[in-house]
């Protein structure tokens, strides 16, 4: 059974339609990567999956359940987490409080999860009492991902997790994404570093003008000369 399966998504902001039939499907525990030019509708697709956009046509099935246009708080309870591209932390809250807010829907004791996050991102352990807004860009991205992981999601949506980061941090974030995925979390992410991202992807989706241009395994897309020419910079 697919972890998430979206078919023929249409939707946009107000009257303006951005998505003109997007299909997405990944299996449990897989990494799916969405690439495409700026403005292709990659972020909008993630928002549509997470109930932040009015989907006018199409269907989204998550773990066998139809969730089209379901509100984010319900999706969080069902095990879907989202890290937006920008403004993805609570800047005046400490690192630790950011993680606690990620666990807001939990009623159980989640201290072990906080420790697990500091294990994933040792950089954060020493900064747990510092306001997250004071951290570097890379560390902020780590806070954002940790916050989302606090619900132990079965699907993590990441929007350009490495945007604007130095190569050092970029590699670290990629390593962490792989480690998080190895622990059983399905990941659907938008990435600008298409080559590197498709290299770790089980499934790849190339979007253009709000619809799928190419859909295949990550390896096949990397080796497809047409994809390489138009989307991977030759």
């Amino acid at each position, binding site marked *: 059974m697919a972890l998430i399966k979206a078919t023929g998504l249409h939707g946009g902001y107000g009257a303006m339609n951005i998505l003109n039939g997007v299909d997405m499907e990944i299996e449990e525990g897989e990494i799916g990567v969405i690439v495409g030019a700026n403005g292709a509708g990659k972020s909008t697709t993630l928002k549509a999956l997470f109930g932040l956009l009015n989907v006018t046509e199409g269907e989204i099935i998550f773990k066998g359940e139809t969730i089209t246009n379901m509100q984010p708080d319900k999706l969080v309870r069902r095990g879907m987490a989202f890290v937006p591209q920008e403004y993805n932390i*609570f800047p005046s809250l400490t690192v630790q409080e950011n993680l606690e807010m990620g666990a807001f829907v939990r009623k159980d004791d989640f201290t072990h999860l906080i420790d697990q996050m500091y294990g994933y991102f040792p950089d954060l352990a020493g900064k747990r009492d510092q306001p997250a807004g004071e951290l570097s860009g890379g560390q902020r991205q780590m806070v954002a991902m940790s916050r989302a992981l606090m619900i132990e999601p079965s699907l993590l949506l990441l929007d350009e997790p490495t945007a604007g980061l130095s190569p050092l941090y970029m590699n670290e974030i990629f390593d962490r994404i792989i480690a998080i995925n190895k622990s059983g979390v399905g990941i659907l992410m938008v990435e600008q570093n298409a080559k590197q991202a498709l290299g770790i992807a089980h499934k790849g989706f190339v979007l253009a003008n709000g619809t799928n241009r190419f859909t295949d395994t990550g390896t096949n897309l990397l080796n497809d000369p047409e994809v390489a020419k138009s989307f991977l910079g030759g």
Partner: protein
Amino acid sequence: MNEFIFFINKVVISGSVIGSIYAMGAIGVTLVFAILRFAHFAHGDLMTLGAFFSYILVVLFPEAGSFIGLPTGFVMLPIAMALTAIVAILLDRSFYRPLRQNNVKPVVMVMASIGVTLMIQGLIRVFAGPSSRNFFFAERKDIFRIELPFELASRKIVVTEPQLLLFVFITVAVISLHLFLTRSRLGKAMRAMSDNPDLSRVSGINTTMVVWTTWIIAGSLAAAAGTLLSLDVTLKPDLSFNILLPIFAAAIVGGVGHPYGAIAGGFVVGFAETLSVFNWAIFLRPFRDSLPDWIDLPNKLAFVPTEYKITVPFVILVVILIWRPTGIFKGQVL
């Protein structure tokens, strides 16, 4: 020495009293702004309403206070706070929430709150008329006169029981608010929502619960401020009109959206008011004999005549905003 005691009475005590009242009002204004992003102009009316709830309870149960030896108005305060909190939530559900759900611009929310102001003021006028009321019709207001152990001090420091209760109340309220915001799950969620409302939704924070909590804190503090002010002087039906501008000035001076800023702002505005109407001539009088004849000491030497006290919060507001456009604490942009 007596001049100094006069200063303590007129500036230190009066300033702390009015500063505490402004601070409690400004905390509400600033929290509502932080969570709901609009200037809630009906906040002063929640104060009047809360004070009237207390007053009605005192009329109904005038003996309640004598059992524990505190003013009945103070004993009834928790009930009045709860009632006002309920009113605040009902106002939100009937007027502000429908607008919010239609994603209206903040200015529409502000207009709605002005409508609510007019409505509450109208209701109060219909039921209570224009006259002032005294909470102490059945009991005596205790006044403490503290003598200082100095030879030259013949004057006494004067502080009333409602004033002392106000100081105790605001101390407890501020400490509780601090612990709530920094230690409790809901308090942290409130700060989170103030930081980033979209991410709060994305994280699964129960934003409805946060909104309710905001109104409960704002409404109950407004009721407390209104009641404690009315206990200190009298309950005037136009209380909100006189207090609205200073509490907004306090919230802005402190940095909009910052509860600690609102507290600081409240005291800044309160002390600015008392200092500006204080008669500084008092301090010159002891030197009268040593001054040359041609200097004619005026009887009254204040920065601002008492009638113009209402302008002081504006002056403070303008001066602080020129010096620091975001307020004392770095606040949100209005």
